[in-house]
């Protein structure tokens, strides 16, 4: 006696345009479209539609559109349709609600309330089409001792660094949560761009060891797919302590996404849900983290930077400071908007803090303590555009991780149903007939295009500010101004309000 939940979105077909080719029927893994012989036309069951837009994009006559349904419960400013539907759903199933991708709710997006400066008269803007404009960054510890050889020449005492040609990396998305073809696209794009992609907690498929120079491997609480060769292959190792979409809990890969290949790569049984624990069971405190960091360094002979990834939570500055003192080379902070392949809805929508505020506080705290140099800071959690990258760097980040934006480049339409494993775009699925829809030859080029386009835009904005090296933008908060932010928000971000002079 399930309560019927009306469709949120409606599939609308223009009968004048539809030629009955049945492409939509073949494309929809949710089985929305069907040819009705009796009626002699295509029909659709909108209740199954997740609004992934696959059919809309592929319909040869553009006969389809998906619209927000105008069916509504009695209007109520307190009980939204969504809140009511969720109650019905839980009363139907008795289960925890699952969601995917980032928190979609109406919280402030601070990046959109920050404006960037440009040069006028007193110093010249620099033209990136005519002058060099450097976006290269090195990630790792900078607090080196200056040593000289007997002839007085400087000795290279730098700890291992990651060299990025542009301050953007692909954030952790595991093989299992996303497809083989998605991983291949990311790996090849990272190689071509001179940046890095991140395996996530799902291990590294044997075919992808050839991209290991551009691979960050992750060690998460489930230790899936972690073995000596895996660690040694990587350019850097990331310890995943938390994820912005689900701070405080572990990962969940539904059994139906665990195919033979995923099972072999993760070193776990096929077809059974893979749940990584909320904590690392060998890390109950900061000193335990230090041990894991040094274990990994020992295992790789101190040749690779160790990244510690945490979710942005209320006390993030103090936590980051602890991590910086624990031997980590890079801290990755994931904001509450960060994406996921599957997370409990309540956690995704209610836990954590915005990345902009977390970043500003972490950077400031590390500086106050004089240890900003002992780590690089990478931020993630809804970097929408090159402008967000510029703002994040000016707030104090060394580089950004992009996840959702990268998936969008591969075709994702943010239908937020990755956890069902039926991604029509061949991304968040392991079904062979869906996976093959994503052609890695095309996918990797689209990723390359995206990152190159952003890099050009970053260069344009830098040039406008009179900067020709991204290093001179890092932490350069005078380049930023807030609009419509209150005193507290400005103080936390460490920026002035628009209209205030330097």
């Amino acid at each position, binding site marked *: 006696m399930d309560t019927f939940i009306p469709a949120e979105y409606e599939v609308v077909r223009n009968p004048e345009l539809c030629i009955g080719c049945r492409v939509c029927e073949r494309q929809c893994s949710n089985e929305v479209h069907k040819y009705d012989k009796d009626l002699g036309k295509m029909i659709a069951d909108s209740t199954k539609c997740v609004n992934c837009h696959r059919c809309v994009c592929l319909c040869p006559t553009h006969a389809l559109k998906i619209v927000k349904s105008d069916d509504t419960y009695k209007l109520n400013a307190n009980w939204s349709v969504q809140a009511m539907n969720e109650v019905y759903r839980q009363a139907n199933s008795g289960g925890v609600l699952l969601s995917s991708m980032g928190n979609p709710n109406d919280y402030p997006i601070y990046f959109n309330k920050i404006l960037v400066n440009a040069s006028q008269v007193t*110093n010249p803007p620099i033209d990136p089409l005519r002058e060099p404009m450097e976006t290269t960054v090195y990630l790792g510890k*900078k607090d080196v001792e200056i040593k000289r050889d007997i002839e007085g020449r400087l000795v290279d005492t730098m700890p291992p660094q990651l060299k990025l040609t542009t301050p953007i990396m692909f954030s952790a998305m595991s093989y299992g949560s996303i497809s083989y073809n998605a991983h291949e696209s990311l790996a090849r794009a990272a190689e071509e761009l001179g940046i890095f992609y991140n395996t996530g907690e799902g291990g590294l498929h044997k075919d992808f060891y050839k991209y290991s120079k551009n691979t960050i491997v992750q060690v998460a609480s489930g230790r899936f797919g972690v073995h000596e060769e895996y660690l040694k292959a990587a350019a850097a190792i990331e310890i995943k302590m938390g994820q912005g979409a689900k701070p405080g809990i572990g990962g969940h890969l539904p059994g139906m996404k665990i195919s033979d290949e995923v099972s072999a790569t993760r070193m776990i049984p096929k077809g059974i849900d893979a749940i990584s624990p909320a904590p690392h069971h060998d890390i109950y405190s900061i000193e335990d983290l230090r041990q894991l960091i040094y274990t990994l360094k020992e295992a790789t002979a101190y040749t690779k930077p160790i990244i510690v990834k945490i979710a942005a939570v209320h006390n993030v500055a103090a936590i980051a400071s602890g991590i910086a003192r624990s031997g980590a080379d890079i801290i990755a902070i994931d904001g509450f908007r960060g994406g996921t392949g599957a997370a409990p809805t309540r956690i995704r929508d209610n836990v954590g803090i915005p990345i902009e505020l977390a970043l500003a506080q972490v950077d400031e705290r590390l500086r106050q303590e004089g240890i900003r140099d002992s780590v690089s800071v990478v931020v993630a959690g809804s970097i929408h555009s090159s402008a967000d990258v510029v703002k994040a760097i000016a707030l104090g980040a060394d580089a950004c991780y992009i996840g959702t934006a990268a998936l969008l480049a591969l075709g994702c339409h943010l239908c937020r149903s990755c956890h069902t494993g039926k991604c029509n775009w061949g991304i968040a699925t392991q079904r062979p007939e869906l996976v093959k829809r994503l052609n890695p030859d095309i996918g990797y080029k689209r990723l390359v295009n995206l990152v190159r386009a952003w890099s050009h835009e970053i260069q344009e904005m830098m040039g406008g500010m009179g900067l020709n*090296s991204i290093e001179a933008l*890092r932490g350069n908060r005078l380049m930023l101004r807030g609009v419509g932010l209150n005193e507290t928000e400005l103080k936390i971000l460490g920026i002035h309000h628009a209209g205030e002079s330097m």
Partner: protein
Amino acid sequence: MFVNDLEHKKAPLEGEVRIPSGCAVSAIIDRSGKKMTGANVIRSIATMHDRSNGLGGGFAGYGIYPDYKEYYAFHLFYNDFQCKKETEDFLITHFEIVYSSEMKTRKTKGITNEPIIYRYFLSPLSKRLANSLMDEEQYVVKCVNKINAEIKGAFVFSSGKDMGIFKGVGFPEDIGRFYLLDEEYEGYAWTSHGRYPTNTPGWWGGAHPFGLLDYSVVHNGEISSYDANRRYIEMFGYKCSLQTDTEVITYVIDYLIRVKKLTLPEIAKVISASFWSTIEEKSEEDRREEIFLRKAFPSLLINGPFSIIFGFTGGIMALNDRLKLRSMVCAEKGDLAFVSSEECGIRVIEPELDRIYSPAGGQPVIYTLKEGGAL
């Protein structure tokens, strides 16, 4: 007095806002160590009159206090006699005051609203110094910062040994004559600055050079990396209270020399680093060194237009930003070496030169006293 005047007008002071300014710089050094009055450097900077707007000028002279060369020479601006008394009480408890007097000045047309200006020759009290657990230089810097931050109306604007900074609000040539630099002082090196700020704070302490111990910096430009440099250097105990480029540049150089023990050419490779693409083309050894320096000190890259002259005991260093977005020429004639924003600032003193050239962006020009050149 002057600050009150300004408060009245409600114009923000240096340190309360960031004031962009264009400028002229110029310097002369006699590498044989032979001394000269400030007359030539005044003529040089006066030739570039149009690069200043009468809102700031100043000079640094090296080797000018031979009789007191063991002592820290403090130059102070006072608002009133109240803060002077407070400052002197502080000085007495931290230093032995070997000699003190009001700064000798002459009435000069165009120079108005001057503060009370005093000079002290000081030696740290040995007991206090020992108790402070600091080395002597740190101790002196700390005392300077304390006066500048805590005694309202008092400002130490020069604190090195056997050198002095002279500055104020006005055209630089008037400031030079006001301090009698053309008669009273002889030094082996002089640097100078004429300022073109975009608004009118008109505070004497805000004029250039900026000094820290015997280091002085004059600078033309407006750096775009200011806040990145400031927030980085403030991690190491510096406080950029004036919010000027010159101040932050001085601290950056001081940190790299004194704390990190880098050489001047190495420092140039940090603050005015070559482009990665240029570094790629260098010899293996240079490449290794420059990549290391850029990796180690990325936040000390000074970006945006600048030409600076850094003065120190025994020499000067001239340096441009990596793109050379500000003009600067260098020249030599016998033992004399010159640096100037424009060639005219050199030719006016020495029309016939052995060599004159325009250093490339990021290429440091370092002139030091010759071996045996008297200090």
